[in-house]
């Protein structure tokens, strides 16, 4: 039988559950906004095996495989090769690890996370700036693992402690710069799988089209020319030079210019695209 429906709202079937009201605090400041996204980056480090994989496992495997499997063939002895290759491994791991935050951002845009962040009064660029801030610690961890392993296996940087520290500082700058490249594609390409595909392919080209694995002088002329256009090449040369204490002024300039070029070309378009982004 139908009964006439009434206007009054029925009593809750499962009463008693409610959330007490909580006054909204004043809008968060810029620094707090950045710290929030830095915090998010760091807690994810703990949970996401991908992050740990790129930060720890990947460089270890790479170092062992290249040094012992191919090192003898490339440089005579594994020990010799290690002196050349180890700074490159650090660059390699850092570049791989620098993609992670961009892929997170890309996923945020694809899901509703971007909308939720956008609808809050938070300082919006904190998403980019804060995340990159949190990444500093991640990059430090990422570079320490292969370095420690290398030292254990017989890597002896001629530049000494100071050289190594300078090299690591330079690498923070370089990784920050190169992460704008990934951020650019993360914001440009809406579909996460497509974005991940492009970013991975590009990473592969950048890493293997560089002088990380072998000196560019040993390559055919055309390839050497291509490799010298790659910012990763200049980062690897600079890192090696700093660690071994034989960096030329020209190479240092090239290493710094590579960072500047990445930032100039990719940071502004990324920020603009991000601000205009509407799903």
């Amino acid at each position, binding site marked *: 039988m139908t009964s006439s429906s009434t206007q009054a709202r029925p009593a809750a079937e499962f009463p008693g559950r409610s959330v007490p009201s*909580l006054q909204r605090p004043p809008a968060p400041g810029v620094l707090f906004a950045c710290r929030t996204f830095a915090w998010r980056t760091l807690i994810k480090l703990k*949970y996401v095996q991908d992050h740990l994989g790129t930060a720890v496992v990947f460089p270890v495997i790479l170092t062992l495989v290249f040094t012992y499997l191919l090192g003898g063939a490339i440089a005579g002895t594994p020990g010799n090769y290690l002196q050349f290759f180890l700074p490159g491994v650090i660059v390699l791991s850092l570049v791989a690890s620098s993609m992670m935050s961009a892929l997170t951002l890309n996923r945020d845009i694809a899901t509703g996370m971007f909308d939720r962040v956008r609808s809050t009064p938070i300082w919006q660029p904190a998403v980019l700036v804060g995340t990159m801030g949190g990444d500093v610690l991640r990059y430090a961890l990422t570079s320490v693992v292969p370095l420690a392993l290398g030292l254990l296996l017989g890597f002896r940087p001629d530049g000494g402690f100071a050289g190594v520290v300078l090299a690591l500082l330079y690498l923070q700058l370089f990784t920050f710069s190169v992460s704008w490249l990934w951020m650019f594609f993360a914001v440009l390409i809406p579909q996460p799988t497509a974005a991940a595909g492009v970013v991975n392919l590009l990473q592969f080209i950048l890493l293997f089209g560089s002088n990380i694995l072998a000196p560019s002088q040993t390559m055919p002329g055309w390839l050497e020319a291509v490799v010298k256009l790659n910012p990763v090449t200049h980062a690897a040369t600079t890192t090696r030079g700093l660690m071994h204490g034989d960096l030329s002024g020209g190479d240092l300039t090239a290493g710094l210019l590579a960072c500047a070029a990445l930032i100039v070309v990719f940071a502004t378009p990324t920020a603009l695209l991000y601000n205009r982004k509407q799903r």
Partner: protein
Amino acid sequence: MTGNPALAIETHELVKVYGETRALDGLDLTVRTGTIHGVLGPNGAGKTTAMKILATLLQPTSGNAQVFGHDVVREASAVRRRIGLTGQTMALDEDMTGLQNLILAGRLQGLRHRPATARAEQLLEAFELTEVGNRLVKTYSGGQKRRIDVAASMVVTHELLFLDEPTTGLDPRSRSEVWQMIRVLVQDGGTILLTTQYLDEADQMADDLTLIDHGRVVARGTPAELKTSRADGVLEVLLTDPSRRAEAGTLLARAIGAGVDADSDPSRLLVKIPDADQAARALGELARAGISVEDFTLGQPSLDTVFLALTGHSTLDDTREEEAEVRA
């Protein structure tokens, strides 16, 4: 700013065009402060689009929209200080735990870490998610994810809360719990704009309803108004003698011009009736003809009937007529 302080939302001729699609085609929406306002419409009607414009996430192609008197485009940051949002697509980081997601949501609103954590724990408890709070969200069931997502828009009490299909995918118990929480928010003075696919939910929850289709308002009013304004009521008559059903049907159709349907129960007769007076007349006619009635009920049409009647056909002229009819 111009604008009526009693209104939480006011839009005028809001248009949003995506390429060929006119997602919103001159939407005029008004939401009274302190009410639960339901937006109903078939898939693709423009509900989410409207909500995103109001939540400052999309720019309208033309027209304007105000939230508490603030223009959503020019004064977006003032609007953002007053609203919360649970969108149709999930706003969670699946590589974080439920607790961490709620802390993040709290910090985005400006809560310091410790109060944000305390609040997150409180919400987990209220939404019965405490046991899974420390697990990664990607291991959650669909309903658990949805509940965390709804909880995340309650980390602070918003003056205006947008909920885009908040209960989709929830089991009846969880749905009713979410309703309960939404009601409490309104008791505290909040305003809720809600879309839903569940008409019973709209019927029971909303103070006011706006039905939209093809980006335009098709009807508006309280659930009761909508039901009485559009579709007819139904008089259900149970006859003592089933063999006289056909006779009774013909009689009623002739005497009051009502539409009559036979039910699968051979003694039951369904009579479409515009109001209670006509119902009384119908029963009188039956008595005069000596057809005895065992029982009868007078029911209002369900919102489903109204919804179908209003959106089931698509010519623009019809739509305009109905709109005028309901407003009158």
